[in-house]
């Protein structure tokens, strides 16, 4: 493990909550409102952390463990991703499987936490969440395969690192397709429009929100922060595909990265303001579409 990598990770952890803020701000501005300040999420987290937890009588330790496990998995997942142009703190052949596995573990924990309440609303949310995730995961792997093809490396550090830069001239078209489908994944995995609407207020139409309906106080804070971190992680993937930072070392690479993250956040905001939310039944089609893009990207390189 390189110390620098850990520092980069720390910075990412600090910056993460700003991303939803940026997205929200963008959306407000584009829709002609002033909207909350960019740093609003930090304030929310502080408020929630001070609150006292309220637990349903039907819940067990599973309910409490969910948010913690989710957050931990995201942090560990971040350990696998190269941030500052150097190899990630943890890297090994096939660690992309571990990355997907971590996301799955976090989801597993959080969904179970939701079901622990025994409320049909959480059940409904959980059901929708896993349905969407089921289609998100293969798409993610298609993107990874395309990257593996481009770089010939089975580790995230490798395929988002030096070899990727080398591959751009050769497989530019394919890689940009991968980037796009990764962006769609980002929207789906983080329950943003057009898959889900974090701003909705009717439980029956929610997905992610309704699943964590019963979590409050510190637990909700963990979930919100985890969500931000997840957004950041996917952002890193998108940015790394579009802007390989192999050439730059340390700070420069980081600067590039966070600039890119900002752009991604803005992009999310833009999408939210220009697109309407899809009907739930059509969400799988959206993801299959993204998968088709990635598949096309793969074929481009095989052919």
């Amino acid at each position, binding site marked *: 493990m390189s110390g620098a990598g850990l520092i980069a990770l720390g910075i990412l952890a600090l910056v993460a909550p700003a991303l939803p803020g940026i997205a929200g701000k963008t959306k407000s501005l584009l829709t002609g409102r002033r909207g909350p300040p960019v740093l609003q999420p930090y304030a929310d987290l502080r408020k929630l952390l001070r609150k*006292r*937890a*309220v*637990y*349903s*009588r*039907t*819940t*067990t330790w*599973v309910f*409490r463990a969910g948010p*913690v496990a989710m*957050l*931990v*998995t995201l942090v*560990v997942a971040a350990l696998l991703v190269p941030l500052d142009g150097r190899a990630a703190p*943890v*890297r*090994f*052949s*096939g*660690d992309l499987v*571990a990355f997907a*596995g*971590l996301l*799955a*573990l976090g*989801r*597993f924990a959080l*969904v*179970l936490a939701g*079901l*622990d*309440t*025994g*409320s049909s*609303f*959480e*059940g*409904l949310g*959980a*059901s*929708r969440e*896993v*349905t969407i*995730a*089921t*289609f998100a*995961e*293969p798409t*993610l*792997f*298609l993107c*990874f*395969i395309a990257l593996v*093809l481009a770089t010939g490396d*089975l580790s995230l550090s490798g395929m988002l690192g030096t070899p990727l830069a080398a591959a751009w001239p050769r497989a530019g078209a394919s890689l940009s397709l991968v980037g796009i489908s990764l962006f769609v994944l980002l929207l789906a995995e983080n329950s943003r429009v057009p898959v889900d609407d974090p701003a909705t207020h009717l439980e029956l139409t929610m997905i992610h929100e309704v699943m964590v309906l019963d979590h409050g106080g510190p637990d909700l804070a963990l979930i919100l922060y985890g969500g931000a971190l997840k957004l950041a992680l996917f952002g890193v993937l998108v940015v790394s595909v579009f802007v390989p930072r192999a050439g730059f070392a340390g700070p420069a690479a980081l600067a590039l990265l966070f600039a890119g993250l900002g752009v991604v956040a803005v992009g999310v905001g833009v999408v939210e303001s220009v697109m309407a939310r899809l009907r739930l*039944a059509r969400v799988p089609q959206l993801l299959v579409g993204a*998968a088709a893009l990635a598949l096309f990207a*793969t074929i481009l390189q095989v052919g």
Partner: protein
Amino acid sequence: MTLVALGVALIVLAGLAAAALARRPAVGETLFRVLFGAGCVAGVMPALGVLAGATVPDVRLAPTTPFGPWVFGLDPLSAVFLLAVLSVGAACAFYGLAYLAHERGHRAVGAAHLLLAVLVAALAVVVVARAALPLLIAWEGMAVASYLLVVLEHDRPAVRRAGMIYVVVTHAGTLLLFTLFAIWAGGASDLSFGALAAHPPFSAGRGGIILAVALVAFGLKAGVVPFHFWLPEAHAAAPAHVSALMSGVVIKMGIYGLLRTVVLFGAPPPWWGWVVLALGACSGVLGVVWALAQHDIKRLLAFHSVENIGIILLGIGAGALGVAYGHPLIAVLGFAGAALHTLNHALFKSLLFLGAGSVIHATGTREIDRLGGLGRHMPATAATFLVGSAAIVGLPPLNGFVSEWVVYQSLLRGASAGGAVQLAGLAAVVLALIGGLALACFVKVVGVLFLGTPRHALATDPREAAPAMIRPLVGLAAACVVIGLVPIAVVPPALRVGSLVAGLPSAAAGFQADAAAGPATVFTVALALSLLVAWALYAAIGSGRRPSETATWGCGYATPTPRMAYTASSFAAPLLGVFRAVSGVRTDRTAHAFATHAIDPVLDGLLLPAWRGARTAASWLRQVRHGGLSRYLLLVGAAVVASLLYLLAAGRNP
């Protein structure tokens, strides 16, 4: 080998003791425990030794029958399966003692223990046999013993039906094995594996037939789609510990057969690899989709066996393709992943079946939609079941993740290898889809069984299972965790198996992949530690301020009732909607009720109708015999006339 033989003998002895002393269970079952445990230990030690790199000389018995000597041997391939057989076998046997305890008196419990011992012994012999005859004998012993165990509760018609289907299928499989060996050996009189492996190169046609027959014969046993139809029936009908053993180990003998076939046959042609890969994909996806559609916990778990067999086949297919296209690394990783996943699945699937058994034992129902909130009543069972679920979904840091990781590597390397084998990379996507669906399914199971509130008020408050039933669960769960935590310890032996199947010298197993096991271990351990630390911190901080308690927020409903709880069917509905075409779900809609049930496309759609047709046709043909003596005599006359005509024909052209 002597140790293995000793182990088998002890296990059979244990069964005999339990049966002989059925009148005095206290003595008999203690004796059973001791002997059985000793037998398993005796068998496991050499297996571990071989996996660690030691070699064991074969044992050749002088021929007492036609078709060559009886040979027994223990190589890494046998060893990994022997490990699964004995570890899971012991767990199931011990669990069975407690599980059947309350059946004493009105069922032949002693006989059941004996049969289980025989089954385990037969399984052990299957994996060490190195000649056709002992293999066939052990194979059928395993089939018959497991059949008799399936119909242990034969007073239930459903059980008899399932048993009937099972026994027919397994007998058909045995006949196919006869064919396999007959074709393979040709005119040769020696049917020991050594002789079979030293066959002169087959013609493409004959080799193809051999591989095809092997695929069907062993696919039937393994429950590969479309030969899976018997599996959910039988595994749902059997007592829990038998289902666990069957789903965990017995069906794996099909996998063993396939791998052994590859070892003896040598490099299979590409088409075989592709077929295996395709079958694996179908089994994986359809298995888990069908599982999602089930309401019966045991049927659900049985369908997940189909799914995991699919994952294993993906590994075997990748391996075969690696061999066929000359990519040793892909081959070794694929076979290694298959072997490792076989062992892992044996562990967590038996764990899940035993856990389900405890639930059924405690609540008296197998209907998922009637259960709920059991975690509060049976914490130990719930915790171990949770571990098993996470493992079967392939989540780190558990054993399911490790083996799927190896399979993924094989497939992804296929993608990056270049050439036709690149297509295999897409199987990785299928594997990811399977993983996602499995997660959905087990979230449903765990959530609905153990969390939340009961969907129907249960007759009695369920009580936690007896310690004797919990101990095996804990043991299996521990195994899942340990294997998951230290890939460094399990991957190299798996690679040894892989290189054996791939026909490479064992030294070649020192691949880059081997190196990856180190950092992977770092990762798994780090993950486990950080989970623990985080939980500790959370608990420490949380302990400061006491949380307030209230009812679940029902969006306005003051008090949520059981009827409001989300059912498993509703949970699975959106996904099944997507897979409408293949899920086999039928809906029964009435004025005031809406229910769904799943039918098996192959069994209910194809085989049973065909059988009924055959019966009608036969009863129609039987009319010929009716009518008395003169009809009989005319038939004799007809035979005479026919042979006279043949005589004339032969006379013309002698």
